[in-house]
């Protein structure tokens, strides 16, 4: 049975690993051609540093286990703790990958990598430990929240812990960084470089998401077909609503599928499939409306729209679980609305504060922003001395 659980978690871990290629292609397709190479190197490097940092600091912080000092764990139960680390690392590494899409095109390479170190080493694992980990505060049976509200805060696969944390940390980073040069003076061409790469990224994320959600059961015995079905239903709801509301806009449609998946993570194990469709459909529209509000009204230059996509929809997912996670509405379990609401809002506050402090400090110490000339030349030439189709340049 342990060997089976190792396989189970491993499949999830590898699927989440593959999602990082999805993050990369989604960014590559959405940004300007002069910032494509940078997206690739950034994502793979952030994944790599996150691995080291989360292994040494983050995972021990969240769960109390330092795998590297306990060789017995290497073989105990086929090494299941190692694979659990790998699986949970995938979640942690989403944080920098999410933020990356918001700050693209004008953030310096190493400061942004440095941020990843703190994000996956401390900021994310601390919150993680409050919900899933060793600090019995929000999500654990008998935790503070459980005592306060009667039911603990429920976030099955990370709407709040992963997506909202990532998306809300991105917001201060994007604001501190200021818009790309010319973004609100009409000089900047904001059109995406490649719909096929955008779509490829979206598909890779969609497919990998089933590892993200289903394997969050963490043991095969607890696998739930409902989680799989609800993830599907929310993806479908997000796709349909955003396609219709955006009048068949390719960018919104592909992000709508992701919006649905983000929002369903929290309650995927408890809500009715029709509720999942609804949660996803609302998420698709949330993305459209808040993306326009953010980038046009507030003039916050969030390139991929990571705050509305991951931030607001993550929060929506946490709250929605509190609404639809109820037997009266066809669900299989009764969650507590106030527990969900409080937990979801707490994450917002934590993420905003942590994000502001982190990026402010890095900005003051190292500087976050590329020079105008670097920005004009593009991150690819600036940091990697290469264009995305090198053979074509003259």
């Amino acid at each position, binding site marked *: 049975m342990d060997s089976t659980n190792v396989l189970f978690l491993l499949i999830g871990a590898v699927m989440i690993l593959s999602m990082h290629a999805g993050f990369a292609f989604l960014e590559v397709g959405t940004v300007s051609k002069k910032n494509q190479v940078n997206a690739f190197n950034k994502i793979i490097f952030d994944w790599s540093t996150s691995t080291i940092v989360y292994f040494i600091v983050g995972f021990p912080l969240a769960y109390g286990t330092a795998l590297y000092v306990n060789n017995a764990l290497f073989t105990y139960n086929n090494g299941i703790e190692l694979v659990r680390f790998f699986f949970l690392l995938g979640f942690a590494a989403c944080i920098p990958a999410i933020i990356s899409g918001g700050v693209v095109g004008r953030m310096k390479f190493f400061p942004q990598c440095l941020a990843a170190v703190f994000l996956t080493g401390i900021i994310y694992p601390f919150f993680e430990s409050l919900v899933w980990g060793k600090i019995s505060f929000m999500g654990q049976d008998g935790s503070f929240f459980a005592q306060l509200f009667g039911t603990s805060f429920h976030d099955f696969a990370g709407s709040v812990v992963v997506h909202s944390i990532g998306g809300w940390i991105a917001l201060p980073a994007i604001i501190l960084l200021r818009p790309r040069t010319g973004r609100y003076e009409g000089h900047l061409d904001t*059109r995406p470089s490649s719909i096929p790469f955008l779509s490829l990224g979206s598909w890779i994320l969609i497919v990998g998401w089933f590892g993200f959600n289903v394997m969050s059961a963490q043991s095969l015995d607890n696998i739930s077909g409902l989680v799989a079905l609800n993830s599907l239903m929310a993806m479908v709801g997000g796709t349909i609503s955003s396609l219709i509301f955006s009048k068949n806009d390719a960018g919104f449609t592909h992000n709508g599928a992701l919006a649905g998946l983000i929002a369903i993570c929290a309650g995927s194990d408890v809500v009715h499939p029709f509720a999942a469709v609804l949660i996803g459909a609302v998420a698709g529209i949330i993305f459209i409306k808040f993306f326009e509000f953010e980038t046009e009204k507030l003039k916050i230059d969030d390139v991929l729209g990571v705050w509305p996509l991951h931030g607001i929809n993550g929060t929506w997912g946490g709250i929605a679980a509190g609404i639809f996670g109820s037997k009266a509405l066809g669900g299989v379990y009764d969650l507590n609305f106030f527990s969900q609401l409080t937990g979801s809002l707490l994450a917002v506050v934590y993420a905003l504060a942590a994000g502001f402090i982190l990026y402010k400090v890095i900005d003051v110490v190292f500087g976050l922003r590329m020079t105008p000339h670097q920005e004009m030349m593009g991150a690819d030439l600036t940091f990697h001395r290469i264009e995305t189709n090198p053979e074509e340049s003259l």
Partner: protein
Amino acid sequence: MKLIVAIVRPEAVQDVKDALRKAEIHKMTVSHVKGCGQQMGYSESFRGIKTQVNLLNKVRFEIGVNDNFVKPALEAIMGVARTGKIGDGKIFVLPIEECYRIRTGEDGSIAIG
């Protein structure tokens, strides 16, 4: 010697090449361009942001010819590139002062063909 610059619809390219070949004109330089004229453009939209795009795909032929080939070339092109609808394109004839064949270094009217 003249340089004939012809902007045509992408759909007409194969026919123009064939017509020129029939008119014994075998040498040309061709490129993808975007053009606007009486033909309407269109507006694009991505995630709610609209962009006015009024340039459509066209193909540009550049053909250096001796003077006696100008007329046959024009006729060849106009014979096949005309659909009668707006967007068919334009032909400009420019004067060439000198012409060189890189391979041999020859110049003048012998070099152009």
